[in-house]
């Protein structure tokens, strides 16, 4: 393959980050992460990038490539036209640490706010029983590799960082939906979904679904069913009377 010119957005603060051009030789089959590694090994040994598995399984190497949310390890160079200039930038929604590395701690703090799964007792033989069809709904969501690209592209927080206080982001709507659909879970989280998680901010533009490298149908299978659950729980007249009487 011919040489490519890659522009990497480098810096330690968003305000003074600059595009740096690198011309690199590209071998057959290589992905963007290979090219970043080659730049590290030759021209810029201190180019900061996060990565682990290099096989699309760990969700560490998220970036915005030509403006699109992508895993660097799963973006083949043959996707680009020879001579095309390629840009690689860090995820915009998270505070910049350095070069392609961002501070995603928002997501770890959010994870702590979600009550864990709570199962009842197993059957007498010590085993739980669940059917494949029932676990498959949750399994789709548990494919999530926590690359946080869905939340990166979500305009609720991308364009309005102030909303982060009141919005968990698509990653955690997926988590909440998964728990909600767990066949044996007994914990009630619907108030959390409605209030602290800020599901109401989502107006279903499906940006998250398009960004997901694991092809999780975030909007259709997680967010919309959760919204329906909130409506059912909030506008059920019997529950409404119950709430009125109990004062909650």
């Amino acid at each position, binding site marked *: 393959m011919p040489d490519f010119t890659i522009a990497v957005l480098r810096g330690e603060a968003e305000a003074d980050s600059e595009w740096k051009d690198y011309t690199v030789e590209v071998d057959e089959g290589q992905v963007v992460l290979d090219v970043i590694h080659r730049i590290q090994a030759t021209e810029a040994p201190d180019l900061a990038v996060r990565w682990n598995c290099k096989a699309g399984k760990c969700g560490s190497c998220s970036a915005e490539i030509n403006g699109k949310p992508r895993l660097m390890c799963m973006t083949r160079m043959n996707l680009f036209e020879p001579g095309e200039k390629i840009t690689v930038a860090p995820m915009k929604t998270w505070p910049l640490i350095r070069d392609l590395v961002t501070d995603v701690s928002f997501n770890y703090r959010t*994870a702590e706010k979600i009550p864990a799964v709570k199962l009842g007792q197993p059957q007498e033989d010590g085993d739980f029983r669940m059917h494949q069809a029932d*676990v498959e709904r949750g399994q789709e969501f548990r494919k999530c590799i926590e690359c946080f690209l869905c939340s990166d592209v979500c305009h609720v927080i991308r364009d309005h960082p102030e909303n982060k206080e009141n919005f968990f982001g698509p990653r955690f709507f997926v988590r909440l939906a998964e728990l909600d659909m767990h066949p044996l879970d007994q914990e009630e989280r619907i108030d959390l979904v409605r209030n602290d998680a800020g599901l109401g901010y989502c107006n279903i533009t499906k940006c998250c679904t398009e960004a997901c490298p694991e092809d999780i149908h975030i909007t259709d299978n997680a967010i919309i069913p959760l919204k329906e659950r909130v409506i059912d729980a909030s506008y059920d007249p019997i529950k409404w009377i119950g709430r009125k009487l109990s004062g909650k």
Partner: protein
Amino acid sequence: MVNFESHEYDVIVIGAGGAGLRAAIEASAQGARTALICKSLLGKAHTVMAEGGIAASLGNVWPQDNWQVHFRDTMRGGKMLNNWRMAQLHAQEAPDRVRELESWGALFDRTSDGKILQRDFGGHRYARLAHVGDRTGLEMIRTLQQNAVHKGIDVYMECTITRLLKAGDRVTGAIGYWRESGKPIAFSAKSVVLATGGVGKAFSVTSNSWEYTGDGHSLAYWAGAELIDMECVQFHPTGMVWPPSVRGILVTEGVRGDGGTLRNSDGERFMFDYIPDFFAAETANTIEEADGWYEDKVNNRRTPDLLPRDEVARAINSEVKAGRGSPHGGAFLDISSRRKPEYIRRRLPSMYHQFKQLADVDITSQAMEVGPTMHYIMGGIRVEADTTATTVPGLFAAGECAGGMHGANRLGGNSLSDLLVFGRRAGLGAAADAAQQSSGPEIDEDQVEEAVAKMREPFGRDGEGPYEVHRDLQEMMQKNVGIIRTETELDEAVNQLKDLKDRSKKVMVSGHQQYNPGWHLALDLESLVTVSEAIARAAHMRKESRGGHTRDDYPKPSEEWGAQNIAISQGNDGEMEARITPLPEMPAELKVLFEEENDA
């Protein structure tokens, strides 16, 4: 005096893969104030890449299965070099650890009656691996992570430990640096658990990620602990071979467990030519019997495609050397001729994805090209089976960085169960040990100062960069200490390592200390060189072939060597020493399990 951040805990756990997370959960449950320290972000550790499943004799698919059969398979797979007590505890406790994971939210694939489904894997007599498609490691690490965040464990992410602190003989904490800022951080701890995983980045073709630089092995070694079985390195038979940028990436054994077979360039199922006497009684010797086994395991013996990994890796290596390899120097692995596309996509979704996206191969209609890739090290820190205590007081180890459990070769699926069983035991052991200590140890500022000065050395130098030294080390290890070894190459390796060690001490780093990957690699080189030397020296010493250690000049196993471990430790002069120590002898009631060979 350097300024440094410091923290005090009862137990610190270094490494946050399956073993580290499970250890931290347990230590915390025992009431110990616990910190979990990880080189990457939480949930990104190497466990996430495990694909096939967790081996446990639940007996959900084959009621005949029980811990004794699992124990026997594990020992035979390890060519009897295993620490029998670890293998016993592992086989006995794995089912409870899997059920526990389910009660913490893991969603395993199911049998028709709603129990946890189990799949076939190499060397396991019955379908035994609890799994979620081919992403079981992700399910496991996420479940543990989601459990751990509610336990009051303090998590230090992107924090790399470079030295353990000691007072006299006892380990008293650790010192390291934040990746983000480059600033030092010290921990005082009554006990320390190492759960740092493996050493794959010492080799050039590996399924391992950048984190696998032998940190725990080296930290323990520098602190005076003993390493055992370091010559036993697992080359997984099926890594991707093409295109070059993905060479080494793992192709799960689940492909063969679910019906995939290996062929050479002549279209022959060559594994029938490589059935060793040791496994002849339990392995099908005709294609008809092997094919029949997928549906009827009672009347047929297992296909040789599912021999233990060391056997299959050597077979592929021989076929390629004999000129019967695939176009890019591997073997063909095909599941499309036996299974329907829907079945393949459901059972092996990430393999489908991986080949489609990275190699333009559709595994539902085409064969994959696969070849050996350095995957795992059986050798590790010597531990006491029940408590995971190392030979140094206050120091515990679990998971891949601990040695003994898997002997000379690990069976697929036994790693995830190892992490759970011994991760829990490490948490118990460390918490109990910490409870015996009256007060938290003082942090010795001299040791901190020395460690910090060492960390910063590469900045002031003028010389070659760390990437060149790392590449040369990987190529040297791959060439001289790889899947097939000989005396002359191992001599060469030991010699070249002296030079590489020198070079690693002189590398130069440019830029500053904030999130600087060149600097991180420069610091990792020290542990990479240390474990490489341990592997080369032990491989030089063991003059036989056994499991993951194959000597071209000593092609057979020897009874004498089969009763011995090689132990590595640091001598008083700072040089590495290797010595022979007796393998613990199995008690009579367990030996009986190996006398019923006809039963196989």
